Each structure stands twice: as structure tokens, then as C-alpha cells.
């Protein structure tokens, strides 16, 4: 706690100093938008911390050399409050007040769509996250925005194929999700995917913020579901759904095509989480991750949100594109980004762009992912899968 406070005081001092000292020479502002208040705060902090780590790395190596200039990147981040108004205001401020040309985030469809409405006309590069297909599939043909994390469109088909192969006894799928943007946009696609694969599906939406699912679980059990998919539920809700499903007497399998929230589920559900299978974006126990985890914990204690490495990755990808373009010129950096296939930022393997078949533009960063299982309170990798490049 003391450390957090000290860090805070330091940050405030730095912020004040920077505000006072006009623009430091050769400084390169990297914008970020994310939820720093309200329910999406964990995602916002993942953006902030992942990006900050990538920036620290560049600065520790003496800055970003582009052509004959050396830039010192600096993070400027604003809160979107997980609303469209907040996203728009944050983007307006970054673009028009701070003159930022590159933005990471936000996470979540409402702010992401609002941010893109500002940044695309202003020709500002955005690497965002959010499951709404419209983020990429828009009138501007994505233009200056990219998606830095897989959406369900990318990982669902591979996971269902794996399910068919490894658990042939499953017949009826139960799906419970929030009625927010994620649930309403992504769930129908997931239901279709299951149905196409020959499964029966029972589904139900609940109001965002609900913590008590026992009645719903009782309802689900009465429907004879034999695989319960926690799909796109936020980590806590996923954990509570699992715990309360078990407490209500559900005996079937539970997995999650979405999330990922394995740590949170283990924390919330304790021993009841045993046997749970999940989509996972990042193997924190892999050798490649060790350095990331150590660096992260130097600054912040506690559980690392699974999205933090992906944002770190996104920021590194952006910096590499700048290096290759040799300039901060937005159009040149964008072209370099699009041609970045094969560059390895260290955590997710070589960059692969996809999305042409689904969004009409190859602006979707395809990240390899895992299927993990909880065994005796530990996470065990069952399979490593790649999204299909379409």
C-alpha cells in the first residue's frame, strides 16, 4: 500500500512537472483510453500497465530511433468510464488537445466505437479491443484502426472443433451471459456456431451487475444441459456462475469459450473449480512469460489481468511498425503495421493479421491461444490453438 501511494505521489509529481514544462523535446505521446472507473476498470488497468511496460522498455533502451531522431515515448491515458460519451471525450482530448497520433485501447465495444468515430476522420492510429464486428467492419474500411486482441470470431471455431473431437458425449450446451454489448453481439454468433456443429443450445441473458445466479442455475439444471459454457462473462461473474452452478447441484462439464478468467474463477470458486476448462490467451508459466511477469510484479503486486500481456504486445507491435517506417508519419506507420507479418514481439509468436473474410479488411491481430484445465487448483494446458487466418 505504501508503495502504491509513493508511486501515486511520484506519478502526480511527474504529471504536474510535465504539464508545467510544456513539451519536452523529442517526446512522443502515446495515447491510451480505457476504463479507470466503474466495472471495466480491470481492463483499463491492463491497457495502462501493458502499454507502460512496453514504453519503459523502449526508454530503458535509450528511446525510439526513427531516422535521425530519437523519441522518448510517454503514456497519456484518459478514462472512458466504459461509456460511449466517456470514450468520445477521452479520444477528443487525446487527439485535439494532446495532439496524440497513436492510441491503444479502449477495451469494450461502446467506448471503442465512439473512439473510432473521432480517430478515423482525424487519421489517428488506434489499436483497440471490443467484440462488436463494427469496430473493424465500418464505412471507412477500418482505415486507421486495428484490433489488438482476438474476438470470439477468431477463437470460437477452433474451440468448438476441439470440443467435438475430445468430448463426443456432450449434446446440449447451456449459455448464460450479460445483456451488455458483448452478450448481445457475440452470443448469437456463438449460439450459431454451436448449432452448426450439431449441438442443442439453451441460453439466457441477465442484467449486468447481477451476482446471484442460483435461481438461473436451478433453471438451467432443469433444462438438462450437459456442458455449461461461461462464454463472455467478465471474470467475477464467470467465477460466481461456476461456483453457484456447482452449489445448485449441477454435475455436468463447465468450460469457457471466452474470458479468459481462469485465475479469478479459481479464486472465487476454490475447490469447486476443479475440472473447469477455459480459453486462455496467455500462459503465465511459460519461459517466455517469466520476464514479463517479473517486470510486472516489480511495479504492481497481485493477480495480472490476462489482457495485460496482449496490450504489451500491441504496444511493441506499434513501436516496431514505427521503427520500420522510420518516421512518426501516420500513413507510413499504418502501412508498416499492415505489413508487419512475421515480427515476433516475444510473447505471442510472429505477428499474423487476419479478418478479411469477416470484416473485409486485414486489421485483426491473430494471437495464438490455449485451452487450459484446472486440476487440483493448478492450471494445466490441454491444447495450444491458432485462430484460422481468413
Amino acid at each position, binding site marked *: 500500500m505504501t508503495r502504491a501511494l509513493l508511486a*501515486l505521489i511520484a*506519478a*502526480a509529481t511527474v*504529471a504536474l512537472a510535465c*504539464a508545467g514544462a510544456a513539451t519536452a523535446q523529442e517526446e512522443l505521446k502515446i495515447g491510451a483510453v480505457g476504463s*479507470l*472507473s466503474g466495472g471495466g476498470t480491470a481492463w483499463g488497468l491492463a491497457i*495502462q500497465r501493458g502499454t507502460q511496460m512496453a514504453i519503459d522498455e523502449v526508454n530503458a533502451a535509450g528511446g525510439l530511433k526513427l531516422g535521425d531522431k530519437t523519441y522518448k515515448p510517454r503514456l497519456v*491515458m*484518459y*478514462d472512458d468510464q*466504459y*461509456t*460511449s*460519451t466517456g470514450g*468520445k*471525450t*477521452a479520444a*477528443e*482530448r487525446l*487527439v*485535439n*488537445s*494532446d495532439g496524440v497520433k497513436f492510441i491503444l485501447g479502449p477495451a469494450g*465495444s*461502446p467506448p471503442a*466505437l*465512439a473512439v473510432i*468515430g473521432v480517430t478515423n476522420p482525424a487519421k489517428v492510429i488506434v489499436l483497440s479491443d471490443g467484440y*462488436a464486428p*463494427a469496430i473493424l467492419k*465500418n*464505412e471507412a474500411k477500418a482505415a486507421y484502426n486495428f484490433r489488438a486482441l482476438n474476438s470470439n470470431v477468431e477463437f470460437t471455431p477452433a474451440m468448438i472443433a476441439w470440443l467435438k473431437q475430445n468430448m463426443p458425449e456432450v449434446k446440449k450446451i447451456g449459455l448464460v451471459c450479460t*445483456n*451488455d*454489448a*458483448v*452478450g*448481445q*453481439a457475440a452470443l448469437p454468433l456463438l449460439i450459431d456456431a454451436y448449432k452448426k456443429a450439431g449441438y442443442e443450445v439453451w441460453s439466457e441473458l441477465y*442484467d449486468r451487475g447481477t451476482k446471484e445466479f442460483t435461481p438461473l442455475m436451478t433453471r438451467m439444471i432443469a433444462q438438462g444441459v450437459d456442458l455449461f459454457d461461461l462464454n463472455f462473462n467478465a471474470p467475477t461473474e464467470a467465477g460466481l456462475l461456476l461456483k453457484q452452478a456447482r452449489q445448485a447441484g449441477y454435475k455436468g462439464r463447465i468450460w469457457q469459450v471466452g474470458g479468459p478468467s481462469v485465475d479469478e474463477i479459481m479464486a472465487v470458486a476454490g475447490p469447486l473449480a476443479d475440472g473447469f476448462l477455459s480459453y486462455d490467451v496467455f500462459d503465465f508459466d511459460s519461459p517466455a512469460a517469466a520476464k514479463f511477469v517479473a517486470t510486472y510484479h516489480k511495479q504492481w503486486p497481485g493477480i495480472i489481468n490476462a489482457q495485460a500481456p496482449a496490450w504489451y504486445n500491441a504496444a511493441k507491435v506499434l513501436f516496431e511498425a514505427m521503427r520500420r517506417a522510420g518516421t512518426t508519419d501516420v500513413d507510413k506507420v499504418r502501412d508498416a503495421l499492415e505489413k508487419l507479418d512475421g515480427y515476433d514481439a516475444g510473447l505471442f509468436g510472429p505477428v499474423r493479421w487476419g479478418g478479411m473474410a469477416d470484416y473485409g479488411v486485414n486489421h485483426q491481430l491473430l494471437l495464438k491461444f490455449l485451452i487450459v484445465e484446472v486440476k487440483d487448483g493448478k492450471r494445466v494446458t490441454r491444447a495450444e490453438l491458432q485462430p484460422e487466418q481468413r
Partner: protein
Amino acid sequence: MASVIGAAARSTRPRISALHGLVAGAALLLALWPLVFGNKFLLALATLVALYAIGAASLHLIIRTGHVSFAHAGFMGVAGYVAVLSQMRLGLPFAAALPLGCLAAATVALAIGPLILRVTGKYFVLVTFLFGEILRLVFTEWTAVTGGSNGIFDVPPPAPVFATPLGFYYLALGAAVLCVGIVARILGSEIGRTIDALREAERLAECSGVPVIRWKVAVFVVACALAGVQGVLQAHYLRLIDPTTFSIVESLNLVVMNVIGGMQRLAGALIGALFLTALPELLRGYVEMQRVFFGIILIIVMAALPGGIIEIGARLRALGKAR
């Protein structure tokens, strides 16, 4: 506090022209500054302040009848969705969609008003709180029409002129001046004096021949229609419409604007709109601390100035008189 109004109501005749001059000067300043300073972020912020001024002022109108509505953002949403849908699905021009949206908000207000306006004080707060939640649930659940939580995006600009930030600022400013002007005129006329009367002594006013419920409903309907203007314009400003813009948090924001600015005067609502829209932006630099500061500022203002920021003026005047 109310005695201040009482005294003012009588003795303002000569001062009104000075007030008008002040208002006209302020309007001129608001219209001209973007031409001098080109800061686009300030422009975006000023646009938001103008939009919120509409919502806060229209809520103030309801507050003057003695009811504090926590569903105001919900009515904005009704207008916003109706206008956007009639523009995008029915192909109506903006000039027709805007009044249609406001009419829709007014219709909902007219349907619910006679029922809920019989309830007073904290109970009204709770009724409207729940009604606002119901409206939000409708926006969220009626996916076929409202697009659900994803909302409706790529909302076209009202007209090509208003597609630029500067153009939209003038649209928002114009709408704000018009709406606030309507509210000010209502409150300054015999209508406003009757509204004050039915708040201060409902039974007495009723026995003097004021049809109290009918008046309250009428004011509620007008206020909700005006709030609709903000809802519609906000959808165009964001270029999208979704339920998060019209949640209980937004309604609460409008109430906070009124209370923190001062519930007794229209100017309080406007000060509150400015304060509450600008302050978080000023604090935004201190990412993690901003909300803590904001919370503490709310406490201090409410504890030190129960009548709102506008009370500072009255206090200073009292101080001046004391010397």
C-alpha cells in the same frame, strides 16, 4: 434561500435590463471565442457543456415543481432513439426527427406523469429511479429496434454544415440558448410564479384554483421534451446511440448538477452543468486520483454550501452588506 427569490421577484424590474445585457454579452462571447482560440478539445468540451445545460435546465424546471426526477436521462434516451430511428430507418430529415423525438419523450412523460407526480419527495425520487431503470432495460432488451447494448452506430450528421466540430458546437450552443431561454421565460412569467406557488404551498395553491396535478404534469411533459433535445443532439454528437448514455448514472449527473449548482435558481443548474462537465476533465490528468478528488469536492461543496455554488454570490452580497 427562498426569501432571496421572493425579494428578487419584486425588485428586479430595473435590474432586468442589466441582466439581459449580461446574458447577451455571455451569448456573444460563447459564439465568438472558437473563432479566436482554435483549441479543438476545448470546443468538444464546450459542446458537451452546452448539451448538458439543456438537460440540467430542463430538470431544473421539474425541480421547481418540488419533484426531483431521477429518470431524466431515460427520457433523453426515448427522444434520442426515436429521432435516430426515424432518421435512419424512415429516412426523415433531422429537422423532422428532432421534434418527433421530443414529442415521443413528451408522450411517455404524459403517460407516466399523472401517475407518478402524485407521489412526492423521496418517494418520487425512488419511483423515477426505478422508472429510469425500466427505460434503460427497454433500450437494452429491445434489441430488434434499439440495437440493444451495442446501440446504433454511424448516426448521420444533422446536416453537412454540422459535421465539423465547430458547426456542431454552434448547433449545440443554439439549441442550448433556445432551450434555456424557454425555461428562463417560463420561470420568469406568471407560469413560473404559479409553479413556485404550488411547490411552496400545494394545498393553498390548489384552493386558489390552480389545478396542481395538471400543472405538474404539464411542466413534466415540457421538461422531458426539452431534455429530448439533449438526447437527440448527443446521439448526433457521438455519432452513435447506446444505453450507457442514458443510464441512471447520467440521470444522477443531472441531479448532481442541479444540487451542486443550487436547486433554487436556474443559474444554479447552468453553473452545475459547467462545473460537473469541466471538473472531471480538469482532473483527468490525475488518472487514479481523479474520482477521489471529485468525490471529496462534492462533499465539501455540499457541506459548506447546502444551497449550491450559487450561494457563494448570496454570501458575498451578505458580507458586502454587513460592512
